[in-house]
């Protein structure tokens, strides 16, 4: 193939870049350097990254190039650079979780996902911005300042994984890792015009993923194409003996599924409770078009009802804070991270240092959820709050079971709105929480979900997303249906959605 200008190199999908690395027309050092240059050029405006490891990424790239030159067989994505959400432990690279309490902490170990990336030879460009401890839907709760949506720098990139989504949308990285506790991969995907996958709970190891809510967290791919997500999913997925909740099965055959073109006879359920009132007209219009596309292609589309989904948000905001209040107890200044002495105390006790550190080190949203969770778990309230929420969780799982008796996949808009203005919902947590109303049920039930771009809303010209949900361990169906939607829409538009995003370097 012919030589590419850097401008085109960074716009390649990961699979196309991998093909060029494999045929020798591009080296990993070239590709990695091009992305580092892009980061240097635009990240001042986007602020997708909290830490950039140029030296480490280039060293990995050079190593891969050398091994390739020596004729060593390499994994498909070897040499393709990647960005990692700052909630995954990276040996030798700071891991802050977007919090002051972990400022400067450098883990002595790698998360399993990260070690799999390293083993496959992916240069790690750096760590991406996020809402503090993944609490939020806008990345505005990062202690290090918000990330900006590449489609409109005055708007939010979604959250909590706004950094990973924005990095991919702004062509700062072809691939990124996100984590999704209630929609933190899928909602940023929807509002930035990118692809995001939350695998089945237990499908990707959580070892080294700094827990927000252990029973809900799941790491997954953040990419520009469904095929790229499939490649990445197969790389990071599969059993890990260090995570007891990891499923003892190989990763799904995502790439094969992404290559299937036919949806005739596929049973598709549109979830009645995830649409209509509360959803922005442009979001609903693009969603309806996707449904029509599937129908035209021969899929059997029916409406299904999941009545318990109405209670999902309430149950989620009891279970998540309960688990978080306990998970975040370890940040106590005793062994690592920030340590603050209480003002005006000469010889503070350990308890006083713990309290002062947590007061100084945690942001308001984190404190809010710790307080909520501590309250919900208190004796006398446990049954009414945590206990009831767990029952709702069972009801939601049963709704999914009943729905998947009738259909192969479920469909809904990913997020009820397009990206809102920075600051617009900061004083209204409940309105912020509603951003995840459509994504939360999947986390509560542990089922997998993908968000695929569905177009631009007529009223604001901003990206919208469609969500596909499948039964637990049937992640391959996400790639099958997701790839179909992506292909059909690209064909209809004659271009990819992201090609319509403003040119950030010109905008500067």
């Amino acid at each position, binding site marked *: 193939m012919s030589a590419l200008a850097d401008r085109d190199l960074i716009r390649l999908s990961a699979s196309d870049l991998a093909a060029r690395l494999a045929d020798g027309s591009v080296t990993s050092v070239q590709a990695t350097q091009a992305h580092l240059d892009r980061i240097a050029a635009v990240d001042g405006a986007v602020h997708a990254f909290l830490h950039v490891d140029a030296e480490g990424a280039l060293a990995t790239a050079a190593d891969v190039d050398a091994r390739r030159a020596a004729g060593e067989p390499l994994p498909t994505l070897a040499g393709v650079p990647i960005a990692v959400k700052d909630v995954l432990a990276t040996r030798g690279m700071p891991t802050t979780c977007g919090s002051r309490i972990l400022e400067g902490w450098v883990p002595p170990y790698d998360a399993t996902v990260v070690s799999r990336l390293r083993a496959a030879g992916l240069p790690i460009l750096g760590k991406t911005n996020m809402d503090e401890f993944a609490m939020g839907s806008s990345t505005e709760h990062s202690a290090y300042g918000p990330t900006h949506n590449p489609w409109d720098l005055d708007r939010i990139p979604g959250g909590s994984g706004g950094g990973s989504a924005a990095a991919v949308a702004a062509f700062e990285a072809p691939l990124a890792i996100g984590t999704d506790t209630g929609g933190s991969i899928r909602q940023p995907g929807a509002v930035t015009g990118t692809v995001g996958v939350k695998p089945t709970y237990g499908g990707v190891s959580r070892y080294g993923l700094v827990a927000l809510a252990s029973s809900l967290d799941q790491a997954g791919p953040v990419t520009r194409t469904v095929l790229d997500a499939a490649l990445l999913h197969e790389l990071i997925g599969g059993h890990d003996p260090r995570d007891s909740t990891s499923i003892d099965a190989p990763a799904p055959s995502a790439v094969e599924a992404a290559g299937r073109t036919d949806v005739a006879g596929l049973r598709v359920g549109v979830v009645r409770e995830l649409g209509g009132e509360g959803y922005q007209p442009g979001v609903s219009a693009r969603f309806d078009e996707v449904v029509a596309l599937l129908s035209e292609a021969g899929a059997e589309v029916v409406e299904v009802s999941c009545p318990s989904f109405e209670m999902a948000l309430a149950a989620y905001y009891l279970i998540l804070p309960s688990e978080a209040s306990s998970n975040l107890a370890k940040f106590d200044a005793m062994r*690592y991270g920030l340590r603050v002495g209480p003002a005006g105390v000469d010889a503070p006790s350990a308890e006083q240092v713990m309290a002062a550190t947590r007061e100084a080190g945690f942001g308001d949203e984190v404190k809010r959820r710790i307080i909520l969770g501590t309250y919900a*778990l208190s004796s006398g309230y446990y049954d009414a709050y945590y206990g009831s929420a767990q029952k709702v969780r069972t009801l939601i799982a049963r709704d999914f079971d009943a729905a998947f008796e009738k259909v192969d996949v479920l469909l809904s808009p990913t997020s009820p709105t397009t990206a809102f203005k920075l600051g617009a919902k900061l004083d209204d947590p409940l309105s912020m929480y509603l951003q995840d109303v459509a994504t939360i049920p999947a986390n509560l039930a542990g089922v997998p979900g993908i968000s695929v771009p569905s177009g631009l809303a007529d009223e604001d010209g901003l990206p919208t997303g469609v969500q596909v949900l499948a039964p637990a361990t049937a992640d391959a169906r996400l790639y099958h249906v997701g790839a179909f939607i992506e292909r059909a829409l690209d064909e209809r538009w004659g271009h990819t959605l992201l090609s319509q995003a403003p040119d950030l370097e010109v905008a500067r």
Partner: protein
Amino acid sequence: MSVTTDLEPVGFDEALTRYEPVFGLEVHVELGTATKMFCACDTTFGAEPNTQVCPVCLALPGALPVVNATAVESAIRIGLALNCSIASWCRFARKNYFYPDMPKNFQTSQYDEPIAFDGWMDVEVDGETFRVEIERAHMEEDTGKSLHVGGSTGRIHGASHSLLDYNRAGIPLVEIVTRPVVVPGDKAPAVARAYVQQLRELILALGVSDARMDQGSLRCDVNLSLRPAGTETLGTRSETKNVNSFRSVERAFRFEVGRHASLLDAGRSVVQETRHFHEDSGSTSSGREKSDAEDYRYFPEPDLVPVVPDAAWIEELRGTLPEQPSARRSRLQADWGLSDLDMRDVVGAGALDLVAATVEQGSSPAAARKWWLGELARAARERDVALDELGVSPTQVAEVQGLVDAGRVNDKLARQVFDGLLAGEGSPEEIVAARGLEVVSDDGALGEAVDRAIEANPDVAEKIRGGKQAAAGALIGAVMKEMRGQADAGRVRELIIERLS
């Protein structure tokens, strides 16, 4: 806040005239697994601080626990040996509270779903059997250790700073909790002690822990309350920790009965709290106030999947159980030919294992019992230590008896050998050599001494000549005195009879 009693404790016997004690025991057993409960770190005791740690047991962000299967197996075997039912499905929970020696600021412990529950153990005291009901045996992890520096007593009060060692953090524990025990008050302290003793025997027989109270691998908390004699409602309890020997179990029990009685007599209420036992004074002092009001915000541990032991596996483990202590006692009593009373003395002195081991080393049961309950029990009392802390091993006792059996020392000389052993002078053989204790059975030396004794005691000699052989004892005594006890008494008797018949 906690009340330090200013009242003189009531005497134990007097307290029993008005009150009935109800007690419960919580015993923590540190399992002897090679690795920790939730990670692969080494568990060897006494390593350099913070050398047996990893991301999991230091609670580094992102690390996750994985259950140690051997620990589960040990817990099930303990449960089975205590006649418990074994849960077919159970979970771990998080017990949330902040403390620097607990890295996660929650302890991963079983809460309302223990691995083993509803069991019992029969405890023998003074020939009577008392059944102690087991409420539960559950798995949990140990905390790290704090060392408070700069204070006077190693306590946090007055300390300038604290050092933390996380080697112990995450070591598997099984906590065995009894139901409230009600037995006649005068027997209660002994029942409590005997329960802990028997439990330790059982743990050792199972091979799941070294169960060393001095190293903290077996720890006992004594929960105690009093209620007016003849009433049913339970009184307020105290929980005494730091009870590090069998004897302390009994002493702490007695002290707390007296303390509670004095408070109740004065019309005051007992504060529900943790108390610390002090070996030196035999008293307890108030620790942190801990009541049911403390809210640990338990919830099921979401990082772990439920423990679901297979029924066939449980039966397989049942097949590996050692002999029950009570059955073993019956068997040993029969083997040794002891009366109930003699056997009770052996058990009561904490000498059962020691006598059994001595017999295994070749001693006769009677001799083994004689030395442990006689000479050595006396030495233990003088030193205020338990028999097994004397520093004399069953093998050594058997060696001493071997010398007696061979006629090389007599009982009196053997006592001197024990003195040497207690003083750490080496092996029995070395002590005999160094102290010159071997009996003299050389006819030449003995004969001269016998002749002198006959000469010095003509009256006695005459009696023997007249057929009164029993009178020979006086002459033997004289010979022994001259030979400073080192004469072979049997040979001396023979020489005397030879000469005077």
